[in-house]
């Protein structure tokens, strides 16, 4: 008993635990978290094969830990990146330790990036996951933000899908503060103010022909 008390006193802590004083229940109203349940079945007409339906609603906690400053930055309308103090490489999405093996997992420092970027590559999505269908067609670009060595994926708004170009200069636009939730969709890219689309080409026309039915299809979605 005595020994146990002594050990508790000497317990080493790696860091003070963070305090989360404000507790809120974010479960959407239809998420019951009732646990696993078989909710029904179907049987083939010849009664040889059965399908059973298992339902499970769940809410995950994504703990951002050392990456948190990036996501907190989004709430504040900032793009936070990191930089290696040894080699000077910088990144968005962030790395908390340097990728250069010579830097031997050097811890990086936080820097605020300018709200400008450049298109590295792009695509026009005419199909997506269930949560994105109504926003189709979506222009997705990989763009390098500020001094970042890597490209980050996000949507490009404010132009016709067929007008997007490799290397085009972009600005970062945040949603109004009250709509931000600390995820990457709090911001999107838009062309810089001085950018003008180039004249119609054969490829642009091809893209226009491909996306026209997508616009029509989205109108039919409830």
């Amino acid at each position: 008993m005595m020994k146990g008390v002594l050990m508790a006193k000497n317990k080493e802590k790696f860091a003070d635990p963070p305090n989360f004083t404000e507790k809120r229940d974010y479960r959407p109203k239809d998420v019951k978290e009732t646990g696993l349940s078989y909710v029904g079945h179907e049987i083939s007409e010849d009664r040889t094969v059965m399908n059973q339906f298992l339902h499970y609603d769940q809410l995950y906690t994504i703990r951002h830990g050392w990456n948190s400053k990036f996501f907190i930055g989004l709430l504040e309308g900032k793009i936070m990146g990191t930089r290696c103090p040894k080699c000077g490489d910088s990144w968005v999405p962030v790395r908390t330790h340097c990728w250069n093996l010579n830097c031997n997992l050097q811890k990086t420092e936080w820097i605020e990036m300018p709200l400008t970027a450049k298109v590295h590559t792009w695509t026009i999505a005419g199909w997506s996951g269930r949560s994105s269908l109504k926003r189709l067609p979506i222009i997705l670009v990989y763009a390098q933000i500020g001094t970042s060595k890597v490209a980050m994926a996000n949507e490009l708004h404010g132009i016709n899908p067929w007008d997007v170009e490799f290397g085009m200069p972009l600005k970062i636009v945040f949603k109004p503060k009250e709509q931000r939730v600390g995820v990457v969709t709090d911001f999107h890219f838009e062309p810089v103010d001085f950018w003008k689309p180039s004249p119609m080409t054969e490829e642009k026309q091809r893209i226009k022909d491909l996306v026209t039915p997508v616009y029509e299809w989205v109108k039919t979605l409830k």
Partner: protein
Amino acid sequence: MSRKVCIIGGATTPFDYGATGFESIEGGAAECVRETQQDVPEFSLRDLDLMIYSHFSVHFGHQLAPEWVIHDHLGLVGLPHYRVENGGNTGGSALYAAALAIMSGHHDVVGIVGWETMDSVSQSQGSEFIAMASDIRYELMVGGIYPIYYAAMANKWMKDNKVTEEDVARIAVKNKNNAMDNPKAQWYRNDHRYITVDDVMKSRLISYPIKKLDCCLMSRGVAFLLVCSEEYAKKVNPDNYVTVDGIGLSSCTIRAGDRLNNPGWSERYGPGYPGMTEFAACRNSAEQAYKMAAIKDPLKDIDFGEIHDAFSTSEAQIYKALGLADENTIAKFIRDERTSMQGDIPMNPGGGLLGYGHPVGATGIMSAVECYYQLAGMIPKKHLSKKTEVPDAECGIVNSHAGTGTSISNFIFRRH
């Protein structure tokens, strides 16, 4: 010197979406083993001394450690077993693990069972499950599905290499039409039609430049492969075994955007490579496999391949990463149909992912099984005709591929 690795048999269930006739996974696995035993009557389940299970996502089956259900059902209690998971390269990684087990001398007869049940949720839910292999913090909500990431990579690659939409459409046509000679292929079983480049060009936009017919299929399916020492191969299947002469496994970033300026690749291949367009892990793992198998010129030394055509565009990118063509020759290489059944290096005679199907954990195993059939002269028995047989094939390549090119393996098989 490590021991030779051999393959003496294997089989798959029909690949499908919905009912296959092998409705339970463990039942499907048992049928794959039974088919293998019909081909190799001397093989007994008692000879196995290790089982490796190849399965991607427990989200689909909603069963943790589902390999335990299969292993138990096969009556293999007491035998060591574990599961390998490595995204779309799960099958290739399981084969890599089996090869290491044989090479080490610790195991003699290793069975691999691979499977996926992607029809347990809706198609759009299934797409989102797979997309959870992207970085969910940064990419899940802005792309939503893998074809979008692949399209962004392919769009720039095609521009850089002067490859057109029509060029890659030829690859989709080739693989889906090859699948029409394969009764286990999902394209044969469901859509069941020959297609043209025009059909691909007119199919629905998924993500520019990828259309619906440029995409592989979501599938349910099981596959089995029997890997062993040469001593055992000579004992049970002396006339019909192949040797695994080269193995390679390599890795790349989870987010494709992190490939720009990556010091790990700059060190190996110089600055600017792979960018967001080239599959560096494919090149790297192919180089390992080529070196081990003494392949000097892949185009001359390799007769055919079963490669990871999740999209027609990625098959084209893989040709280049395998060293079959370079920036200046790749467009002509595709237009000359060098990889068709009539070409000098047919690719995906079995139909590939575009035609056979892509039940993730089973896919790489299916590719290895098809490659084995070609080299063992079993195509006339397994396919509907000799149309998809590579005549006098001596050497084949198997390629398995994950993420946005995040993990890739390559294997060189030779006829014994």
